[in-house]
């Protein structure tokens, strides 16, 4: 459904998103998790065509956002972080405007709006002015607006920010109920939020993807392994094999030119053995440093309290 490849976005000198790649399968609910300022909103804005990418490609359902933005946008129902609503319109009018903007055929507009009203739980407030609605209801109107025309892909940016716990639960249930019919990408900086709704998660930190996996796998990896970065002057063919053969080493993965990451269980510090193996092999050891798992850093920065007040995500 979504293919994001090597996406980068600069704001002047600031690189908000760096070489981000991930794919989303049809029907999947993907969590887009990262601390405030990680680049979540920027990434979503590029996917939805609000901002152009500095480099990299985004394709949604086969259409490229750069070559055919309208084809991409037609497939997406987008709820930005602040629901884009006109206070002077009633709920129905707001959704009707969305239906017209999406250029649904005239005859289908009314049915599409009615359906979105029903699915977002807006029946009771459909005649009220957006200006007079509570924050929770506005969020629902935003969600209803995204649902108009039943687009195959829903992109929801921090859909529960600023809501009270009861509203959060309602919105979450709503999102889960949508899961069957839509592919959903949900961004959040709150760990339990994503865990409650998403099977798979992309974790982003300082503009980079640090992990893409299911929650279960991530949790396992997080608890059990650490990484050591080894840089050598003369990489030889047998180096990887040699490192892999060391006791307790779980995996050896390349990390740029002439460098590898050696993964070991947390309990076993094998730096000494690694150094010895490199020196004995005559590879010319240049550096050996424990790599704090970036995933771990991210998790530390994530809000783990449910329903904590959060504001000021860019």
């Amino acid at each position, binding site marked *: 459904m979504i293919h994001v490849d090597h996406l980068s976005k600069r704001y002047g000198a600031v690189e908000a998103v760096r070489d981000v790649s991930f794919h989303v399968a049809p029907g999947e609910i993907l969590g887009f998790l990262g601390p405030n300022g990680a680049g979540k909103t920027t990434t979503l*804005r590029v996917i939805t065509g609000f901002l152009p990418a500095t480099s990299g490609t985004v394709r949604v359902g086969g259409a490229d956002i750069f070559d055919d933005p309208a084809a991409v946008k037609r497939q997406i129902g987008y709820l930005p972080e602040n629901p884009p609503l006109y206070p002077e319109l009633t709920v129905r009018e707001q959704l009707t405007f969305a239906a*017209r903007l999406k250029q649904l055929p005239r005859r289908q507009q009314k049915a599409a709006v009615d359906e979105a009203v029903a699915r977002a739980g807006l029946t009771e407030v459909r005649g009220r002015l957006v200006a007079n609605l509570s924050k929770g209801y506005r969020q629902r109107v935003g969600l209803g607006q995204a649902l108009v025309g039943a687009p195959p892909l829903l992109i929801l940016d921090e859909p529960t920010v600023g809501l009270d716990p009861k509203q959060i639960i309602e919105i979450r249930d709503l999102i889960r109920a949508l899961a069957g019919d839509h592919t959903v990408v949900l961004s959040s900086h709150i760990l339990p939020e994503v865990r409650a709704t998403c099977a798979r998660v992309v974790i982003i930190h300082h503009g980079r993807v640090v992990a893409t996996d299911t929650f279960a796998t991530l949790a396992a990896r997080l608890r059990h392994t650490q990484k050591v970065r080894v840089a050598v002057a003369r990489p030889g063919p047998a180096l990887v094999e040699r490192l892999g053969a060391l006791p307790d080493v779980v995996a050896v993965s390349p990390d740029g030119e002439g460098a590898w990451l050696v993964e070991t269980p947390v309990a076993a510090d094998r730096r000494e053995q690694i150094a010895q193996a490199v020196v004995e092999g005559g590879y010319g050891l240049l550096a050996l440093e424990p790599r704090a798992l970036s995933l771990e850093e991210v998790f530390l920065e994530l809000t783990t309290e449910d329903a904590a007040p959060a504001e000021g995500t860019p």
Partner: protein
Amino acid sequence: MRGTMAILRRELRGYLISPVAYVLLGVLLLLGGYFNFDIVTYYAAQSLRSAQFPGMAEEFTAQQGIIAPLFSSLAVILLLVLPLLTMRLLAEERARGTYELLLTAPVNLTAIVAGKFLAALALYTALLGMSGVWPAYTATLLPLDWGAVAAGYLGLWLMGAVFIAVGLLASSLTQHQLIAALAGFAILLLSWVIGWAGHNVEGEQAALLKYLSLLDHLENFFQGVIDTRDVVYFASFTGLALLATQRVLDSQRWRA
């Protein structure tokens, strides 16, 4: 241009709900009414005098004595009022965040600019229509050349299109409506008075300044003359401002 109609309709609705349009209508009618009263009273006094000196009467038709001065006054009022009508068009969308809705809908920038422009133009056309009460009043007193009046209205309408396009451009540059109004007003005032500088220079420079001046292109219309050169001037000024607006919006996406 898909989506233009959706934007146009919402925009018009926004105008009709907000008090701004009504206040502007009130201002237009109040000031216009005052000017019309003043002009008609003056004309009456003049025609009384010219009855004593028959030579004057021929040069003093209702078109020259009432309609043209009325339209000139209306043009000045519109110069002040229209930037206030257009200031919110894009600045408000930006400030409210609804701009994100427009840009992530399957609608291109040209359709957005067109929808906004046409909505303001439609409202302006309605406002302008209401000023018809004054020529209609004059017609109860004197015979009027309706063709000439229509030419004057065409001039005002074309001028309004320029004002709206320029106001839209100003509104694309900022999130602040007040700044948009001031910027729009500044550009319009400059193009209004630029012809005056023509008096200080000679030759081609003077001709160029005169050509650029809004005011000089209005005169013919107010005298009841439709000159295609004037029409082309207003149409191209409008088109240029709209194109610039579209380019500004596009470049903002890339610089954001």
